[in-house]
């Protein structure tokens, strides 16, 4: 076997330094629910594994300007137990809680789900719909990046070799706002999304949609932000016609593949259905805010 080195720095700078100095392949360990599977299946053989869970900034959830900053290594279970985040961004929380089983929830993280860059990652469309901002640290300092800019393709990210996602900002939002995420899987649990749809929207006092973001997962090489789908909702009361436009716009945006989990035509058709259903759930939640 190759000698794999394990390091568990307790500062972001320490982690960045390890990555910058790494010779050979280096991997980050947040929840490890993807990394350990890839290791055991011998899909990867990194020379260095950097465990991020001992870095306080990656393990904390903090209120920030009316929103929340979530550490990249915070587990889904911890996020789900945070009443504040759950109230403000229920769609992001429900998406994160859909990642795997209760056991996986004990480990899997937003940062890991984002950086593993699977097109089918459940939390990513929800975060994109939420307009979440990732804080990225590297040797050159810190930068703020829209989450949709992190993944560039299956397993590929825009992060430099020495960069890590430290935290994700779920921003503040006006009254009458909420979000929702739905995915389709063949079973009720334990599957990878065949299609995922995240919708975030704001309703004015009259119940008219004044702002919306719609994102789709598992229908392209990476999660998509679909402005045309959002356009279909803005200005409407989510009447049947608006929902039909949303459905059509979502389906039109899909560029899926056929694989063991679903066919192109299936993904295209169901993407519209889920976008429509998610929009109604988000609107119902928004009505209560």
């Amino acid at each position, binding site marked *: *076997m190759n*000698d*794999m*080195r*394990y390091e*568990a720095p307790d500062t972001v700078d320490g982690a960045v330094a390890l990555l910058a100095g790494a010779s050979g392949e280096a991997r980050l*360990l947040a929840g*490890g*629910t993807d990394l*350990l*599977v890839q*290791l*055991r*299946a011998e899909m990867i053989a990194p020379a260095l*594994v950097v*465990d991020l*869970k001992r870095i306080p900034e990656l393990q904390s959830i903090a209120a920030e300007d009316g929103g929340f900053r979530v550490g990249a290594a915070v*587990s889904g*279970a911890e996020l789900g137990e945070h009443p504040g985040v759950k109230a403000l961004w229920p769609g992001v929380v429900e998406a994160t809680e859909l990642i*795997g*089983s*209760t*056991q*996986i929830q*004990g*480990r899997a993280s937003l940062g890991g789900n984002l950086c593993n860059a699977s097109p089918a990652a459940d939390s990513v469309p929800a975060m994109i719909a939420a307009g979440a901002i990732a804080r990225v640290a590297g040797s050159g300092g810190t930068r703020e990046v829209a989450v949709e800019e992190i993944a560039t393709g299956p397993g590929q990210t825009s992060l430099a070799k020495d960069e890590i996602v430290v935290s994700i900002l779920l921003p503040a939002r006006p009254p009458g706002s909420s979000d929702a995420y739905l995915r389709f899987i063949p079973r*009720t*649990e*334990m599957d990878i999304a065949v299609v995922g749809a995240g919708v975030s929207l704001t309703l004015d006092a009259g119940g008219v949609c004044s702002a919306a973001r719609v994102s789709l997962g598992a229908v392209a090489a990476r999660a998509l932000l679909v402005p045309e789908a959002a356009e279909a909702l803005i200005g409407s009361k989510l009447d049947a016609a608006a929902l039909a436009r949303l459905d059509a716009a979502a389906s039109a945006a899909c560029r899926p593949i056929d694989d063991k989990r679903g066919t192109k035509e299936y993904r295209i058709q169901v993407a519209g259905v889920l976008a429509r259903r998610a929009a109604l759930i988000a609107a119902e939640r928004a009505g209560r805010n």
Partner: protein
Amino acid sequence: MAKNHVTTTINGDAVEFLCEPEDTLLDVLRDELHLTGSKEGCSSGDCGACSVLLDGRLVCACLVLGVELTGHEVETIEAMAHGEVLHPLQSKFIEHAALQCGVCTPGILVAAKALLDKNPDPSETEVRYWLAGNLCRCTGYDKIVRAVLDAAADMRGS
């Protein structure tokens, strides 16, 4: 090969062991410590047979590295009964015939205990979704769910 020295707490006991960086908690429990109650069904987090508590949180031991354990606490099926006294879940699993081959049983018991510690009065649906990560091929889950609900009722009563 460079082995790592790890000091941790397992089932309340201070434990030290050496492991390869790529060894999982499950490898350590079974191959180093011979705590074989945690079973290896898939090594990919899909079957739940290796369910353990890590700092009180339910996880798959196959998805945790042994080297991560320094300073953490692990609880396995071996710690569920106290002396001669079975945990109510263990007794109810026997009473309800909630196991056939029994290989998934330790993982399901650990997971069910984590549920009841968090939610003493779960609905049938809550039990089913909480245990969705614990595959059982023998029972069809019926008697497992009944045993968990019955144990919960008993524990609330006592």
